[in-house]
């Protein structure tokens, strides 16, 4: 026989369970344990703001860059229609909802920090007669480049990133379908970083050569980051945006693996174990380029990558790279530089690296493209609407 108090407690508990189930039915999971297990999938990133999403965000596990060519004779008004369709897609997909007229709506519901970032080439701006912001444009030729057209150039860039490759696949297909009414897919490249839950927030990633890569990155949200990354003057559609240099850097891992640890560390100028500059202890210690060992030899070799890459403070950018692998064929890095001015911030550093970076022996740029990512959009606004007005 149940006591009155015991019975009421039991029914309250039952009622609570019902409420929990009602709340969770949206997610299609019915226990606290399952909700915890699927937390990665349920995380969302707002697509709205003064900057586009997916630039200053902690790396997702997967990212796909897709470049499209627009046909000659396309009108600004056509691109305005495209921008409106894509904006609607972005808002729905990043919230975990199907797009309008979705033939595969059953994939929606677990966006896993999905972000969609859009950019345009200088070529596109010329085609529609738009102003080209200062310092943005094609790169000069570099001696080390062995560029392939299937990884280079294009008119429109759509970058899709997520912690889940299924969410990424689904969103990429929807965006491609809606963009192909206006443009043709030129190339798509996909990369990866660690899976969610493997490394702590703020951790610097290791690239496929084993190096801790990106230590010198400015930290999002700081004054230095804002100054280096966001465009602060020029046409209204560009202010709050940034420029992206995307380079596909192929790595020759077979010859790299033959080097000793000392030799590998000399090439980069950092320890492989924790990324500390040679002669220093911690990853974030500043390198001492003048330090010499007991034999009078520079601790950081003259041709070390970090020596060649260290520019004046003004010549810096933010990196957000993804590793790539075509199993059995090729591995490397989808290397990215985000900066307000490509000509002043990126080109001088790449020129220095072109002329005597030891790392060039094991790395070859095989793809290259440069994009301007317009400012972000607020609720009710159309992404790049003012560019195509």
């Amino acid at each position: 026989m149940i006591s009155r108090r015991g019975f009421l407690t039991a029914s309250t508990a039952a009622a609570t369970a019902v409420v929990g189930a009602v709340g969770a039915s949206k997610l299609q999971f019915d226990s606290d344990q399952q909700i915890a297990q699927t937390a990665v999938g349920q995380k969302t990133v707002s697509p709205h703001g003064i900057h586009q999403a997916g630039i200053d965000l902690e790396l997702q596990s997967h990212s796909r860059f897709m470049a499209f060519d627009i046909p000659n004779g396309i009108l600004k008004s056509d691109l305005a229609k495209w921008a409106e369709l894509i904006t609607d897609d972005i808002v729905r997909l990043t919230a975990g909802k199907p797009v309008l007229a979705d033939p595969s709506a059953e994939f929606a519901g677990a966006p896993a920090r999905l972000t969609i970032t859009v950019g345009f080439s200088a070529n596109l701006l010329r085609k529609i007669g738009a102003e080209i912001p200062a310092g943005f444009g094609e790169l000069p030729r570099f001696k080390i480049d062995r560029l392939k057209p299937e990884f280079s150039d294009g008119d429109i860039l759509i970058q899709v990133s997520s912690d889940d490759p299924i969410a990424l696949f689904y969103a990429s297909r929807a965006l491609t379908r809606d963009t192909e009414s206006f443009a043709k897919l030129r190339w798509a490249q996909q990369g990866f970083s660690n899976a969610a839950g493997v490394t702590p927030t703020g951790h610097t990633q290791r690239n496929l050569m084993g190096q801790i890569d990106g230590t010198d990155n400015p930290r999002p949200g700081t004054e230095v980051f804002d100054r280096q990354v966001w465009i602060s003057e020029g046409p209204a559609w560009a202010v709050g945006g940034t420029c992206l240099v995307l380079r596909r850097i192929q790595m020759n891992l077979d010859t790299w693996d033959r080097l000793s640890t000392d030799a590998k560390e000399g090439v980069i100028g950092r320890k492989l174990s924790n990324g500390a500059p040679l002669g220093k202890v911690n990853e974030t210690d500043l390198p001492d380029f003048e330090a010499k060992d007991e034999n009078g030899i520079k601790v950081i070799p003259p041709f070390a990558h970090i020596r060649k890459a260290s520019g004046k403070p003004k010549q810096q950018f933010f990196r957000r790279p993804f590793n790539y692998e075509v199993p059995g064929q090729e591995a490397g890095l989808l290397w990215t530089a985000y900066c307000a001015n490509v000509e002043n911030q990126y080109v001088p550093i790449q020129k220095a690296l072109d002329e005597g970076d030891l790392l060039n022996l094991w790395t070859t740029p095989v793809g290259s493209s440069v994009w301007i990512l317009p400012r972000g959009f607020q609720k009710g606004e159309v992404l790049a609407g003012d560019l195509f007005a």
Partner: protein
Amino acid sequence: MLKKFVAAMAIVFGLVSLTGCAPATTHEGVVIEDAWVRSSEYSDHAGGMTGIFGKFTNHGDQPVTIIGGETDIAKMVQTHEVVNGMMQEKKGGIVIKPGETVTLQPGGLHIMIMDIAKPIVAGDKITFTVKFKGAESQTLTLTAKDSAGGDETYNKK
């Protein structure tokens, strides 16, 4: 004594289920969501035709029928169904029972507009008024999207 406990439990559950259903009972009549018009090779020229789709939910307590509609850009509007892959007119309209949602989608039920006055291509917007028997008409702005879904055959004359 036990009766009282059962009643108390019923109240608890009753309250919970009311709370759970509250959002659905705030609407009256028909709610139309995610409506769109299809752009395709059938609609990219004047004189062409295409379908209108969307999710229609009847929040009333009487059946409602989609009987067609009106738009400036087409002379003919019909309700259609697809049977064995072939599209045909659905005489009498599309019935939505009280509390039910009917989804008009490629390969199934839809509203057909024919003899369009100008092309409809991806990203275009058209104004369309849906007419019902048993509910007020509703005027919508529909976005055109390319879609190959449904794999239906149009009986071209």
